């Protein structure tokens, strides 16, 4: 009896460490992969960004800030890739969020078969970044594709969507808007969390649907909007697959997104040093923008638990 007691006593502090060990063991595979395939490469790429490392010759020298100088002052295509990416983010992110919220509100009602619709609307996002969707998009907007076929029936001769510099990027922006599934699901969860009694009392006070949306739904949803905005902003800057498959950055570099240009430099021209420098600039810009959005959040994000402005 006494023995077991002391054993139990002694076990308590050491047990804590053991629990931790088990925990670390469980996340071990992830941790190992994280260090090996994410953290270390990130650190290496920072070093590489100050070199002219070439993949094929497997060698490079430190060249200080030359890569950055070249990027900002000499590389015309770099400027174009920044343009294309900014245009994409500015239009695709808000569009996707608006679509996501709109559809989420439609699906936030209890009608028959709403589950089917939810699944159906979410489906494009699951296959979203995939090659298959991009290939399909190319067919839809192709010269004899679905869009031009439909326009033809209406007696309109559609333009060459993917071939014209004015329209090519818009096909990719529309593709992004169409892939609204994951922010939609998050919006849907947010909508379900808004207490019904707020709507009921507003209705009694005579607020119409638009007023209820503006005064209740939107403010109550701001934390969700904030979260979705950050996530979409980050993924918007990193857009790659769509341009890689659908347009190859053409025409006239109007869809040469930043990540695609980094890929070209790194893996097609083997200029890993220069590409690393580009990637780090991108990381800084995203970090800065995210910080700005975070800063601004105190002005527009409404938290239920807040004590209000001090």
């Amino acid at each position, binding site marked *: 009896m006494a023995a077991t007691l002391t054993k139990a006593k002694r076990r308590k502090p050491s047990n804590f460490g053991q629990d931790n060990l088990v925990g670390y063991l469980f996340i071990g595979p992830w941790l190992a992969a994280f260090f090996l395939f994410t953290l270390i490469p990130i650190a290496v790429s920072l070093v590489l960004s100050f070199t002219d490392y070439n*993949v*094929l*010759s*497997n060698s490079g020298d430190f060249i200080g800030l030359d890569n950055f100088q070249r990027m900002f002052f000499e590389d*015309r*295509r770099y400027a174009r890739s920044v343009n294309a990416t900014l245009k994409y983010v500015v239009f695709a992110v808000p569009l996707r969020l608006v679509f996501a919220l709109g559809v989420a509100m439609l699906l936030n009602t209890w009608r028959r078969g709403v589950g089917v619709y939810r699944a159906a609307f979410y489906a494009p996002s699951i296959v979203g970044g995939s090659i298959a969707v991009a290939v399909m998009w*190319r067919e839809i907007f*192709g*010269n004899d594709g679905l869009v031009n076929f439909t326009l033809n029936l209406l007696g309109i001769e559609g333009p*060459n*969507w*993917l*071939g*014209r*510099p004015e329209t090519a990027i818009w096909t990719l922006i529309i593709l992004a808007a169409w892939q609204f599934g994951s922010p939609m699901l998050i919006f849907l969860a947010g909508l379900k969390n808004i207490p019904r009694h707020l709507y009921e009392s507003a209705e009694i006070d005579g607020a119409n649907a638009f007023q209820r949306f503006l005064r209740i739904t939107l403010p109550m949803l701001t934390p969700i909007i904030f979260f979705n905005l950050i996530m979409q902003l980050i993924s918007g800057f990193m857009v790659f697959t769509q341009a890689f498959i*659908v*347009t*190859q950055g*053409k*025409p*006239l*570099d109007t869809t040469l997104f930043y990540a695609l240009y980094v890929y*070209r430099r790194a*893996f*097609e*021209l*083997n200029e890993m040093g220069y590409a690393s420098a580009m990637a780090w600039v991108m990381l800084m810009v995203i970090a800065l923008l995210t910080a700005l959005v975070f800063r601004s959040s105190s002005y527009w994000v409404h938290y239920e638990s807040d004590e209000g402005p001090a």
Partner: protein
Amino acid sequence: MKNRKLVFILIAIALLVLPTLLAAAQDQTVVRISWWGSQNRHDRTIATIELYEELNPDIDIVYEFQGWGDHWTKLSTQAAGGELPDIMQHDYARIEEWVANGLLMPLDGYIGSGVIDTMNIADSSLAGGMVDGQMYGINLGNNSEVFTLDTDAFAAAGLELPALDWTWTQFEEIANQIQDALGIHGIGVLTSDQLWKSQYMGCCDQWAYAPDGMSLGYEDDQPLIDYYNMLLRLQESGGMQSYEDSVARGDQGVEAQLIVSQEAAMAYHWSNQIVAVWNASGPERNFVMYPIPRPEGGQSQNYIKPSMFFAVTSQAKNPDEAAAFIDWFVNSVEANEILEAERGVPVSSVVRESLLPNLGAAQAEMFNYLGLIEMDNSPIRPADPAAHADVVGNIFGPEFVEPVMYGMISPEEAAPYLREEANRILAAQ
């Protein structure tokens, strides 16, 4: 439930590990090989490999294949990781760069010892694979650029076939006549960098790059300007597919050329690709191969080049077995009966002669065409400088071809910029 999951995971692991274990148990030597190409080439090469494995049960050939662009992306990454296959398909435009970086193995020892038998291969066919006096790539077939004409379309348009030494002026006329008569394009876009490289052969006996590769090889922009003005006229008239349309379609490989789908009556490609083009078009179609048109009073813009090489990499784990496979691939009649000259006209005279009686229509036309080019051609130029991909990918395409073909800038304005920027990149190598 948990148990079932465990069993499932164990089975999955077993399935993953099993092939390796089996291979080890059978004590086979693994030779890894990687090539680029069209579906037609993939099918033929895989069938050839299977035959080799049947004949050599102790050899296991593990293959990877991909399109042209992905080939280089993948292999340069593998090179950095020390994971190159034993054999890789190589190209005249890139072999210098790879040798300079110590990634390929000289094959002279294997040739000397007879592992790779070159008795029946002409020196001129081997020369392209030499870098600094050593052999790094075994030529898999002879090749030249070609304009393929659809004779049925010509007949339908009421057009005579041109003379073999046709000029660009005649070509432009024909392309327009086809558009007028049949409502299809004369030809797909002709903006490939290859045509830029050989542009100056016809008029001026020059090449896009200087012999040392440190600058452009021509002084006068006018022939290039004239050529692009012709392309602009053809794009306008529909004699050539519009650049815009080619962008919208994307690069879908040689089998997606307009001539295959009868949306054009002519096509520009490498001579070996006629096998894939004809195969995709169907046996009922009729094609004839023509040299590149030449300038008025100019000389041939065609030259004969090794279509591609097999090279043994310096990271090869089993170079002896790799060399033996290359020897068989090049010299064996059996292998080449399957390959059917899809990589160009075989370099071994024995193979060529044994194939002759049973050639398919495409192969017969290609053999005939290469014979024709042998009579009248320009000499092959040095392999492309290491910065070639940079010049083409970052300057020639986006700063010259695209703005010109979209009418943003005239060829007269764009050509000097191309020269200036290309020279800057070439000098900085």
